């Protein structure tokens, strides 16, 4: 075979090299070569085939082998074309240059370089087989350069090259074979440290590219090509990293990472498939723009959160109690009292959540205080407390995390007014709009806003009567404060009255539900009232909106807290009452026993237990509070649904159909159709959630009700908004509003956390109902668990931990930590500012430079690349990119890595020129090689590469 002859040549070369190698400590390199050769034989064919499909150019394995070397060269930083040209000259020449290159690279890629030239083709295979890095590298490069090579070949001198390649390959093969026989054993430690590091770097870069390729402003075709290349590269070389015993572990790790990535993607696919209402929201979005859609997205988010809360509450509290707890009627707290039993099933009673509802799992009072229930020894009281607290913990975490994520995306940190016109021009169109009517409104509103800005610009401040306006604003605020105070007092008054009512039986429906009705009505009437009053103020709409939101927020909050305080009053009176009842019930119990024993005349006989329905009960304030919250929530649902039905739907129907026989145009004129009230709806949702948080501890069923509410309101409101509302005339921005909503939610969460934690920590639980009955404080259940269920030392540990001597330092430490983190963040902020300034400067500089020279910026290049003119030739795109720049971007891993390496290589090689020089020249044919190859650098590297083959 021709190869053998070649091999002979190679041997000669190899010998020479060997001498060098021995001098220079290249034993490793030799080994590598050997290995490569060995591997090369086996793997060459396989690779060749593998490559063929990728490169399309390669017909034969030989060619492929040739390619491999080129790839390496590319890695070395020489341009493949040049190399090829060189190769064409002579076999010998080819070899020589290659060797030189290898020498340049020697330390780091010494192995690779050497392999690359003569044994390249073989070597890669060998490496692969071994898991050697060199081989892999070569392959990668090959892949990368395949496109290029293919093109070059096709274009230039495909045939010549092929011939050359063939020759080379043969030579290489021969070499490798000889080497392998001689040095096969030595190959073991394939790659030097430097090589490893470099390879690792390259692989990392490729990986990064794969991860980020979607962020590159490239044409899809180019992206796909690059992706394929990078993936192939990584596939081939990844396994090569790690050595010795570590290699297996490394391979395992790599495999696991791959699986993990795959799993993540699948999971992501699954997760997005699970997100509901995507289409519905999209539909709303395209009709009403992003601001209305933001409400529905918020609603969906709330639904998700509540679903989790629901899962916790039902999974850990309600269902265990239902399945494992005592059944209804077994003990007093689970039984409707005798005097209520007649009416307990009346509809009106049930609607008030009295009767059977009151003595059901929906409310706190139903739960038993047995420490463990069922076969599983489920600690229900503990779990009840933990779920109650966990609800808050989870919500807090989720809200804060979402806020942080939103803040990340938000970005807009420019001062108002800096870019008024530019922003209006470039960011005001809402790309989501897909409805003609909305689009018309949007056009109109954009035009108006431009006109407004123009007017503002022209006469910066038209100050007419400042005094009048100030007076009006003060007046407006006064009126609003009055109505806020009034509504607060009204609620207080109503709660007080309802306590009076509670003692009477002859109540009308209104009197029973007065509180809820009043609260809902206030929520209904006040916002429009505020809006009307706000007209007086004549603020800019955006500022006006903020004021409006703030006022409604204050109203809701005031109402909620008045309600709470009134409730606390009630709770306190109940607590006093309870004391009396407790005594009475004990007395009654004693009396019952006494009577029994007297009647039986037998003090020894145990009396049958009292019928649970007859036992005297305490007021159970927890259930009372829970009922209040449930009633409030339900009436809120009713009112908001009715509002939609009457305010929107009925109005729309009337406007639509009466318009045929009316004296003015109803659609365009006075009533017209309703607009979707975003701020009102969002605030309603937020406060509703606040009530859920507050009430969930006393009424676990509330969470379930809320889930149902959110679910139905998603469909109902979607339908309502699509069917009855018209797009906003002034489509205002939804920007940042998401975080604004979240901020409100966080505030409400905090405010609703306060009363609940207060009650848990300070008020004594009722003596005869609920999971904590019989304890002096609710959290005693935790203490009890620590004492009874954990080993004794844990108890002492906790008692130490609860010692003020420890707590005070801990608090101090936390304060210090906050202080420290605060100052750190301050410092970061400062350096951020600095960086921003620097970036600004750099940008200016760049601009100046660009004015002179052409675009230096990488992004600009990418931009240009996107220019249709360039891309006019579609075919070049796929294959072309690799040629001029498989690594056009800085980010391109391969390019960067190579560049650096090359330099290093040169640096490394330069010191040894003398030693190498002679060697490389010695062989006649090779001597020429160095000459033609100025780029690669000193011949010595080559020599080294050669070293191994000579064996």
């Amino acid at each position, binding site marked *: 075979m021709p190869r053998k002859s070649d091999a002979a040549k190679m041997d000669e070369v190899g010998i020479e090299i060997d001498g060098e190698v021995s001098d220079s400590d290249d034993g490793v390199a030799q080994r590598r070569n050997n290995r490569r050769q060995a591997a090369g034989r086996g793997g060459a064919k396989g690779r060749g085939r593998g490559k063929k499909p990728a490169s399309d150019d390669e017909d034969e394995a030989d060619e492929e082998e040739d390619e491999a070397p080129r790839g390496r060269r590319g890695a070395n930083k020489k341009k493949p074309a040049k190399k090829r040209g060189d190769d064409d000259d002579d076999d010998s020449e080819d070899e020589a240059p290659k060797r030189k290159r290898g020498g340049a690279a020697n330390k780091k890629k010494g192995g690779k370089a050497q392999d690359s030239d003569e044994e390249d083709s073989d070597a890669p295979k060998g490496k692969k087989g071994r898991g050697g890095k060199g081989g892999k590298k070569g392959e990668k490069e090959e892949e990368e350069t395949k496109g290029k090579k293919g093109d070059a070949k096709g274009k230039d001198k495909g045939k010549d090259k092929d011939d050359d390649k063939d020759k080379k390959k043969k030579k290489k093969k021969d070499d490798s074979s000889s080497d392998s026989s001689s040095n096969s054993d030595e190959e073991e430690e394939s790659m030097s440290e430097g090589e490893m590091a470099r390879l690792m770097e390259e692989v990392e870069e490729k990986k990064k590219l794969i991860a980020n390729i979607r962020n590159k402003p490239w044409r899809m075709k180019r992206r796909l090509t690059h992706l394929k290349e990078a993936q192939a590269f990584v596939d081939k070389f990844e396994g090569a990293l790690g050595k010795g015993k570590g290699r297996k572990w490394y391979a395992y790790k790599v495999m696991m990472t791959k699986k993990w990535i795959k799993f993540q993607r699948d999971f992501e*696919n699954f997760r997005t498939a699970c997100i509901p209402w995507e289409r519905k929201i999209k539909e709303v979005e395209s009709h009403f723009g992003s601001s209305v859609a933001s409400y529905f997205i918020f609603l969906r988010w709330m639904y998700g959160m509540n679903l989790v809360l629901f899962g916790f509450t039902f999974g850990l509290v309600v269902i265990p109690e239902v399945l494992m707890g005592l059944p209804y009627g077994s003990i007093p707290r689970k039984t409707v009292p005798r005097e209520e039993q007649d009416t307990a099933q009346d509809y009106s009673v049930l609607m008030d959540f009295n009767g059977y509802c009151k003595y059901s799992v929906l409310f706190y009072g139903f739960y038993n205080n047995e420490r463990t229930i069922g076969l599983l020894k489920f600690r229900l009281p503990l779990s009840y407390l933990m779920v109650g607290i966990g609800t808050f913990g989870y919500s807090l975490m989720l809200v804060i995390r979402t806020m942080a994520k939103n803040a990340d995306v938000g970005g807009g940190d420019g001062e108002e007014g800096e870019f008024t016109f530019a922003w209006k021009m470039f960011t005001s169109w809402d790309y989501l709009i897909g409805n003609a009517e909305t689009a018309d409104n949007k056009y109109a509103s954009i035009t108006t806003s431009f*006109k407004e800005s123009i007017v503002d610009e022209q006469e910066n401040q038209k100050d007419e009567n400042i005094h009048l306006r100030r007076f009006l604003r003060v007046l407006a605020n006064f009126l609003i404060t009055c109505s806020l105070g009034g509504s607060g007092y009204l609620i207080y008054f109503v709660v007080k009255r309802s306590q009076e009512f509670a003692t009477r039986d002859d109540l009308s429906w209104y009197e029973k539900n007065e509180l809820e009705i009043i609260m809902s009505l206030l929520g209904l009437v006040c916002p429009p009232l505020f809006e009307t009053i706000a007209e007086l103020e004549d603020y800019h709409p955006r500022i006006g909106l903020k004021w409006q939101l703030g006022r409604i927020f204050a109203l809701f909050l005031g109402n909620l807290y008045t309600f709470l305080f009134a409730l606390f009053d009630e709770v306190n009176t109940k607590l006093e009452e309870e004391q009396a009842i407790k005594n009475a019930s004990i007395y009654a119990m004693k009396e019952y026993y006494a009577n029994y024993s007297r009647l039986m005349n037998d003090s020894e006989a145990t009396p049958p237990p009292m019928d649970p329905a007859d036992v005297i009960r305490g007021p159970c304030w927890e259930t009372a509070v829970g009922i209040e919250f449930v009633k409030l929530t339900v009436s809120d649902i009713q009112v908001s649904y009715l509002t939609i039905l009457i305010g929107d739907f009925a109005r729309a129907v009337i406007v639509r159909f009466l318009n045929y026989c009316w004296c003015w145009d109803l659609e365009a004129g006075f009533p017209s159709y309703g607009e979707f009230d975003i701020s009102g709806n969002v605030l309603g949702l937020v406060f509703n959630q606040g009530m859920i948080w507050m009430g969930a501890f006393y009424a676990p069923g509330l969470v379930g009700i809320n889930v149902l509410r959110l679910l139905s309101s998603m469909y109902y409101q979607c339908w309502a908004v699509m069917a009855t509302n018209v797009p906003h005339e002034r489509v205002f*921005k939804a920007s940042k509003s998401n975080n604004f909503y979240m901020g409100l939610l966080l505030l409400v969460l905090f405010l609703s956390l306060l009363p609940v934690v207060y009650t848990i920590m300070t008020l004594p639980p009722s003596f005869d109902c609920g999971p904590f009955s019989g304890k002096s404080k609710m959290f005693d259940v935790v203490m009890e668990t620590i004492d009874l269920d954990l080993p004794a030392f844990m108890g002492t540990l906790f008692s130490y931990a609860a010692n003020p001597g420890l707590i005070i330092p801990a608090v101090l430490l936390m304060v210090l930590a906050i202080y420290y983190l605060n100052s750190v963040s301050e410092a970061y902020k400062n350096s951020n500012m600095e960086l921003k300034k620097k970036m*600004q400067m750099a940008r200016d500089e760049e601009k*100046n430079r660009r004015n002179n020279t052409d675009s230096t910026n990488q992004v600009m290049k990418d931009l240009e690349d996107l220019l249709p003119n360039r891309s006019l030739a579609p075919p070049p795109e796929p294959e072309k990119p690799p040629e001029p720049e498989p690594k056009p971007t800085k980010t391109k891993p391969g390019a960067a890595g190579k560049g650096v390496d090359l330099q290093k290589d040169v640096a490394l090689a330069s010191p040894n020129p003398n030693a190498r020089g002679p060697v490389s020249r010695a062989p006649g044919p090779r001597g020429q090689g160095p000459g033609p190859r100025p780029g690669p650098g000193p011949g010595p590297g080559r020599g080294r590469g050669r070293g191994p083959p000579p064996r």
Partner: protein
Amino acid sequence: MGNKQTTFTDEQLEAFQDCTFFTRKEILRLHGRYRELAPHLVPLDYTNNPDIRVPLALIVTMPELKENPFRDRIVQTFSEDGQGNLSFNDFVDMFSALCETSPRDLKTIYAFKIYDFNRDNFICKDDLQQTLNLLTKGELTEDEVLLVCDKALEEADLDGDSKLSFSDFQNMISKAPDFLSNFHIRI
């Protein structure tokens, strides 16, 4: 997957997922949408990457685009030949760049391309005027348009060459509060 007919091979789907911000389901849906535009042109089977382009006139009839004043520019920007003919790759590319998860930097680049009507890599006054006229449906008077354009240039042009380079644009957009929420199309 157990689809009766394979539209893409798994490798293709993986590659698309690597290169875009879409999940496989979304990619399949995109293909559905793409095919809907020109059922006679676009085959169901894309496993061999047929080289098919759908003309601009068909693309802009999509409900997502049909109300957008910049629809023609968007499609042209993403088309490889610059004429507005989109291959499926371009089509996916377009919606990937405009989707919710794509990063600000990427969106900025494409926004710049879209607003650069004459494709000279600068947004000059002509571009601004065209933008403005599209945005307001020509409701502004000539003077107003000129004034607004001057103002916008004055605000955003840092180097004083009376046109916006990409870095000017980037600087301006990076501070805009509404850009991300508005420059976004859901498919």
